[in-house]
């Protein structure tokens, strides 16, 4: 979806031509995305005024988006459910017409998605730095963890700035999800380590994929928290101070 988002945003003539809002409800993993081709926006969420709603599995969405599968065929095969204005769903043909390779390259260049590794699937709807919407096209394979590298790098930076960690004011337990892992940012010890700590006064639960944005400062802790991507249990103040590690 992120490739599509970049494509739609860089091609305003698409919205002008198509004038339709598509609501996608994808399952496995579940997500709802709006392709708003009236305003030229693609975003995760629900638009109660969408012209047409499409429900299909994530794998089928990938196939449709990559041009490998035809929406009409999928509909008649029962793989794609359409609600609302059926006629409007025909306008999805723009996706078939899109040059996938070019769109993917453009999205990577714009920093919207990570370049897929050699083993990554052919289809581009597998962003690595993204909400959990589009998983890799091999659903059985666990997601590769990105946070450990980020956290180890943070540990190294802290080692070079004595006292930096003290500003955090606490030992923060990180519970990573997807894949699951536990890390500790120990403010007073100015260190980062894998594992759990007994009696943590602050526990932050966050997706592995969001850790980089949090630590780099690309996303503020408050923004991630308000969007439900970061959960805090216990004392909130240290979580508010996680931004001190950016840079």
């Amino acid at each position, binding site marked *: 979806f992120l490739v599509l988002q970049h494509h739609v945003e860089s091609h305003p003539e698409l919205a002008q031509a198509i004038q339709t809002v598509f609501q996608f409800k994808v399952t496995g993993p*579940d997500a*709802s995305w709006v392709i708003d081709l009236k305003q030229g926006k693609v*975003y*995760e*969420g*629900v638009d*109660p*005024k969408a012209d047409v709603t499409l429900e299909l599995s994530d794998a089928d969405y990938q196939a449709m988006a990559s041009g490998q599968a035809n929406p009409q065929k999928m509909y008649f095969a029962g793989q794609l459910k359409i609600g609302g204005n059926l006629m409007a769903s025909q306008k999805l043909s723009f996706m078939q017409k899109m040059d996938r390779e070019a769109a993917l390259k453009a999205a990577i260049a714009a920093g919207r998605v990570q370049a897929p590794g050699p083993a990554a699937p052919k289809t581009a709807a597998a962003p690595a730095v993204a909400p959990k919407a589009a998983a890799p096209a091999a659903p059985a394979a666990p997601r590769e963890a990105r946070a450990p590298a980020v956290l180890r790098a943070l540990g190294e930076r802290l080692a070079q700035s004595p006292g930096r960690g003290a500003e955090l004011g606490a030992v923060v337990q990180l519970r990573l999800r997807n894949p699951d892992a536990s890390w500790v940012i120990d403010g007073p010890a100015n260190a980062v380590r894998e594992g759990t700590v007994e009696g943590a006064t602050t526990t932050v639960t966050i997706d592995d994929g969001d850790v980089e944005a949090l630590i780099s400062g690309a996303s503020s802790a*408050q923004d991630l*928290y*308000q*969007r*439900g991507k970061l*959960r805090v*249990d216990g*004392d*909130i*103040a240290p979580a*508010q101070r996680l931004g001190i590690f950016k840079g």
Partner: protein
Amino acid sequence: MRRVNVIGVGMTKFAKPGASDDYHVMASGAARAALADAGVAYETIEQAYAGYVYGDSTCGQRAIYEVGLTGIPVFNVNNNCSTGSTALMLGRQAVAGGIAECVLVVGFEKMEKGALGNKFDDRANPLELHAGVMGRVQGFNSSPPAAQMFGGAGREYRWRHGTKRETFGKISEKARQHASKNPYAVFKEVLSLDEIMASPEVFDPLTRYQCCPPTCGAAAAVLCSDEFARRHGIARPVYIAGQAMRTDYGSSFGDSMIKMVGYDMAVAAARAAYEEASIGPEDVQVVELHDCFTANELLTYEALGLCQEGEAEKFIWEGQNTYGGRYVTNPSGGLLSKGHPLGATGLAQCTELVWQLRGQAADRQVDGARVALQHNLGLGGAAVVTVYRRD
């Protein structure tokens, strides 16, 4: 403006969706109860205001025709969850403005199971401006939209003030305690804080027991002038000392979830109502406020000036919001435990507060209740704050 007295109140026992009488039966039942309480025959009523949200046009007449057919003006009113007190305000204005001596106000709702949603998807959603704030600041997921909005406001408050999740849960604990003494409430079973926190999460920080249920019910009030009360030998009636409605300001549509769910409307309406009544929050003993979700009750303590901004957590854990504390908030059990039939709620709040001021609240009686405060909020939106007194 003339003084307006509330001389009769009545309500039905609230019920779960699918377990109630039809709307016109509930509403006429509540109306008759209020008329009986006032000792006034329906023929004396000069105007009727009927509040409901879900239903075709003229449901008010269908309900009121069950009580009588006298040809009087009937006004059908809606303002989302603040429908009941909106109807009340219109009735008050009619009497205060000298247009009528005695009016009937009734609010009712027959609800479906499940979360609130829109009926008409072929036209602008009235909450689209509010939803836009949420889309920008928080995003959308598949939880019930109202829970996302008020839960999101709770999130914003929690981030700002470091509030514990249990603080929100404690509000439900109190609601259940109060409702256990209210024969009109839907959920009277007392729950522990642990049970409330352990219930499934609906939208962080709200768990299931922290969200009000869809409910069916009706409530009604009879309002009259001083002259009318005198002529009918009604001494020491409860009266409306102050009342104000405020709708959204520009601040509702910025980047704050707290403001989007009506914080500034509530502050402004409260200020105006206090001013009209020549009182401050310190003069109030008993409050019925809009606890559609625990987060909103917490925010409303501050909006109404019951405690300072940022002090709500302390206020709650010290028990200042219940018997033995500075105020008793939602002695009826509130929307959370008594239930929330959209059209009826504002009038059910009125009914409880009138009973409290008359000393008729049985096990829920707040000692020394002399000044009562009501806060009723509807997204879309409107906030109505009313001050009642009894001399």
